[in-house]
Structures are given as structure tokens and as C-alpha cells.
């Protein structure tokens, strides 16, 4: 145990999907601790349960058994409203498919979680600052996601993930849809963010990408192998 309490604590967590043909155990009694400021990569073949684990860590889903503490809160005790609130304020998401809201401009996409949290539009210039820091110009920011390249969309997504100053960044294959060069830029951006103190949990099947992390957790058949 370290002096500070860990930001993520997974204790004997199982996720079981009941099916007519029999229960599917996606996560089988997993335990894992992630310290504040760590950069952890989660690897594993498809079907290994790494996506399921990510969904639990990202509070998009709750475990069937065990204790999952995110920033000290046991997510199994939260109702949907509080879980949603946790996703809004404590977690930031970066997806493989960028997942920007197609109807909003790049700027509005970044501002959206800010409005949800603060119930007002951004008048501090934070959104512009973030966009600038990920290399999105004001001209680009006025475009809809479909009018931007993949790399640009992922930069906007990073800015969006950061807008509410989350304690944990959840990255699901952040470079999966990008070319090598752009992927490299994105990874450098994430490394910088980690150096500034952000905790990053990243799912990937690419060992090279995983190499950026401090630590790699390998999952197979719902269990942690390494």
C-alpha cells in the first residue's frame, strides 16, 4: 500500500452475462490497483474481456460481483444518475472511433460536457485553450466532425475528454483508426498529459502503443495473466 489511496481499486470483480444457453463469465474474479498519475495499458486478444473491463473502469457498466472503487467511490452503490454524474466529472473518454457528436461543431463538442457540468456556456476561454493545446485552429473548430480528418477528430475528442478536468482518462484503442504518423502524435499528446499528472488507462492490442504506458496488464479469458 502506498501512502495515498489508489485512484482505481478493482477487488475480486466479476462480470457475468446471463444468457439462455448459460451464463457467460466475461470477467472472472479480477483484482487490480491503479495509482493516481499512472499510465496503464490493458492488452489482450479479442474476446479476452478487456473491453468489458474497460466498460467497468469507465463506469459505463457495473460489475456483477466484487468491489470497484473509482476515486474512492464504490460504483456498485451508485444509481444511474450518480454513475452518469461520475462519468461527467471524474472520467474523460477517448474512443477508437472518436465518437464526437455529429450535429455539433468541434467547438461545441468540447463545450458540451462543460455545459452539462456547469449548466452554462464557457465564458472562461477554456474550450479555446484546450482546442489550441491539441492543435485545433479556430477555423477548424467551427466545422462539424464529418468535415475534419481522423487525426483532427481525435484531437477534438482529447480536448473534450479534458474539459471537465477528469481524474482519469479512459482511452479505448485511441490510435486504432489512425495512420502511424498521426497515431504517434496522439500518443505523444497522451504521454504529455500523463507527465502533467493525468491518470491514463488505455486499452490496445498494439504492443507498440502499449509501450508508452508505465505498466501493461494482460487479460486472457477474463483473468489477468500479467
Amino acid at each position, binding site marked *: 500500500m502506498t501512502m495515498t489511496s489508489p485512484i482505481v481499486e478493482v477487488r475480486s470483480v466479476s462480470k457475468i452475462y446471463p444468457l439462455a444457453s448459460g451464463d457467460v463469465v466475461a470477467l472472472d474474479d479480477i483484482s487490480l490497483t491503479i495509482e493516481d498519475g499512472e499510465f496503464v495499458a490493458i492488452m489482450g486478444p479479442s474476446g479476452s474481456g478487456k473491453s468489458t473491463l474497460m466498460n467497468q473502469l*469507465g463506469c*459505463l457498466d457495473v460489475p456483477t460481483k466484487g468491489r470497484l472503487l473509482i476515486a474512492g467511490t464504490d460504483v456498485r452503490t451508485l444509481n444511474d444518475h450518480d454513475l452518469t454524474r461520475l462519468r461527467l466529472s471524474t472520467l474523460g*473518454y477517448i474512443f477508437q472511433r472518436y465518437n*464526437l457528436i455529429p*450535429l*455539433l461543431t468541434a467547438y461545441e463538442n468540447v463545450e458540451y*460536457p462543460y455545459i*452539462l457540468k456547469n449548466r*452554462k456556456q464557457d465564458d472562461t476561454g477554456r474550450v479555446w485553450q484546450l482546442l489550441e493545446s491539441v492543435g485545433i485552429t479556430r477555423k477548424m473548430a467551427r466545422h462539424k466532425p464529418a468535415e475534419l480528418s481522423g487525426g483532427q477528430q481525435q484531437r477534438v475528442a482529447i480536448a*473534450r475528454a479534458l474539459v471537465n478536468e477528469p481524474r482519469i482518462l479512459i482511452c479505448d484503442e485511441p490510435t486504432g483508426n489512425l495512420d502511424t504518423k498521426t497515431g504517434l502524435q496522439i500518443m505523444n499528446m497522451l504521454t504529455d498529459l500523463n507527465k502533467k499528472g493525468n491518470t491514463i488507462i488505455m486499452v490496445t492490442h498494439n504492443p507498440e502503443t502499449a509501450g508508452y504506458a508505465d505498466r501493461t496488464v494482460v487479460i486472457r479469458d477474463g483473468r489477468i495473466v500479467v
Partner: protein
Amino acid sequence: MKLFNDILFTLSVRSVRLNMLRSILSALGITIGVIAISAMGMLGANMTSVVSAQMTSMANTMTVSPYTGGGGGGPPGGMGGSSSDDSYITQKQYDDIYQIASKYGTVYALYSESDTIYTKNDQEGRATIYGLDADTMKSVLTVANGTYPRSEGDVVIGAELADRQDLDVGSKIKIGKEGEGQIKVRISGILEETGISSSGLRADNGIVMTDDLFTSFYGGEGEYSQVTILLNNVNDSTEVKTALEAKLNKREDVISISDSSRMASTVTSSISTMVSFMQSIAAISLLVAAVSIFNVMMMSVTERINEIGILRSIGTQKDEVMKMFVYEASIIGLIGSVAGVVLSFIVGYLVVAMLIGDTTYFFAWNSIVYLPIGMVIGVSICIVTGLYPAWRAANMDPVEALRAD
């Protein structure tokens, strides 16, 4: 809070705009439904207003006719032609009626008989002959051309009869078949057209003579075909009717009383039945519109599953997602309904002008109220039908939704 709502509203507006054609088509459905409901409602209200205005002018008339068994009633004055020898109102009954009803208005008895007439060039026709007291005649009928009967063989005739038979003041008519007793009379005046009678007799197509002339020709003095009561106050009708029935129909029914205020209400209620029927047909068009809105909203939800997943995963609450889709349905509903109201105003006016031909009452509250009613119904239907799709969107599992293409 207001600005916060704004971003969800912005999303809804953009979604409507993105699927412009689809949104317009379903709004059009609502528009048509609103027009149908409002225009029908206005048509009904105007019809009722026009008819009841016509009715009120004659609602003060009560007609007492001999009881013939079975359903009495019939329009006032219409009993004239059907009077037969064995059913009449006696002088004694008339006196009773007069005693009771005279303090409420004018009471007069009349004779009537349907008979064959011969006009110019012995052209045969048929008309109702009325016999009226000379003074009564002056008070209940108006001569448009000529004078009231001045000498014994004088009659006045209705405008329509005069027009049809091409008769004029001074023309001669023969009444009755040759050989069965016939008299020759002179037209001294032509009556003003009365339309639906307010005097208790339908003189437009009739011949009116003095009671003396009538009884000298047909006999049966003191055997009246009907007694008419012109009430000073319409509200007295029930009271008069009750009093008359208590007095005259004490042992057995000898008279029947038809009162046109009842008829007016019957006509009004049958109009409203008809209007309800038309409106229920109009409601079907709104139902079709509702199905279309439902379909559009379900499509919008299905197409945006992935987006819903994103919204939920980055921290949008269920009720906020729901609100977004309800906004969308409301926007479509509002656009459709506003267009519907504007068009209803025009369509309603045209329909009323064409079908009723009288737009006096179009701007009256009971007619114009159908515009806000139509609008409220249109918007409500959109919101109600949008609720389920919105609820489905809100309750989607974020993980599943994110996985969707």
C-alpha cells in the same frame, strides 16, 4: 438552466434540420390533421350560430293543434293541411287557451284547409287556405303589395304563390272544384315573404282570407285547425305549455302543443351530432399523423443510437436524452400545428363562406376558438407520440448503444 436546456434544444433543432424532408412530411401530416379538426369545428360552430339565429326569430311561436294520436309536433303552421273534420279545436277549448295564454302574448285561432285552386286561364293548382280574424291578420301578417282584404271576396296571398302562378293584385282565383262548391275571390294584396314562419302559419304558399269568408265557404264555424300563441318572452314557453296541458289534457289528450324553441334545440343538437361525426373523421386524419410522427421519432432514435451512446457515456443524464427527443417531437408538432392553424383560418373561412354562405359568425369566439384547440391537439399529439421513442432512447444501455453502427 435556461442556457443548459439550450444545448439539448440546439441538438433537437439540428436533428430536425438534418432530416428536413422527413420532418416536413410528418409536420405536414399534423398540419392536415389540425386543419381538418379546426375547419370542421369552425364549420359546425358557424352552422349552429346561423341556424340558431334563424330559429330564435321564430322560437316564440307555440302552436296548439288537435290531438291526433301518436307523435304530435311537426313544424308550426304545418298542421293546417292535415286537419280533418273530426279533429279540430272547439270554441270552448280556444276560450280556455285564450284565458291561459293571452297574458303571455298574442293568441289567435285559425282555420285552414287544403284545396284545389284555379288561377289565370283556369290553371289548376293546390294551396292551403287560411281563415283568420281580420284584426289578427293585420297584426301577424304584413302586406308587401296592395292592401288587406277590404270587401267580402278579397284575399291576400303569399309571395311565393303569387310568383309561381304569376298572380298580381287584382287577379282573380277560383277556389274549390267546379260542381263541389267553388268561390271566386279577388287578390287584394300580396304578403311579404316570411321564410320560416314567425307568425305560426306558412303563408308564403297560401291564401289567407277572413274567417267569415272561410266559414261561409267551408262551414265549421268555431272548429279551428290550430291556435297560435306568439309569446312575448320565449322563456315562458314551458310555463304556458304546462298550464295548457294541465287544463285541456286533464282527462285525455285533446290537444298537442308544438313549440318551436324545442324544435330549435332539436335542430341545433342534430347539427352538433353531424359536426361531431365530421370531427371524428377529422380525428382519424390526426391519428394517421400521430402514427407518422411516431414512426419518424422511432427512426430518429434508431438512427442515432450511436449518438445516444456517446451522449450517455460522456455524462448526459437519462432525462436529458429524453428531453432532447421530446423537444424534437415538439418542434415538428409546433411547426405542423402553426402551419395548420394559419391554413385552418383560410380554409375554415372559405368552407364557411361556401357551405353556409354567411361569415357573420366566423370571428365569434365559439368559432375562432377551434384554432387554439386545433393547435393544442396537434402539439399534444406530437409530444405524446414522441414520449415512447424518447423513453426508449433514454433507457438504452450506453455500452450497447456505443457498439451500434
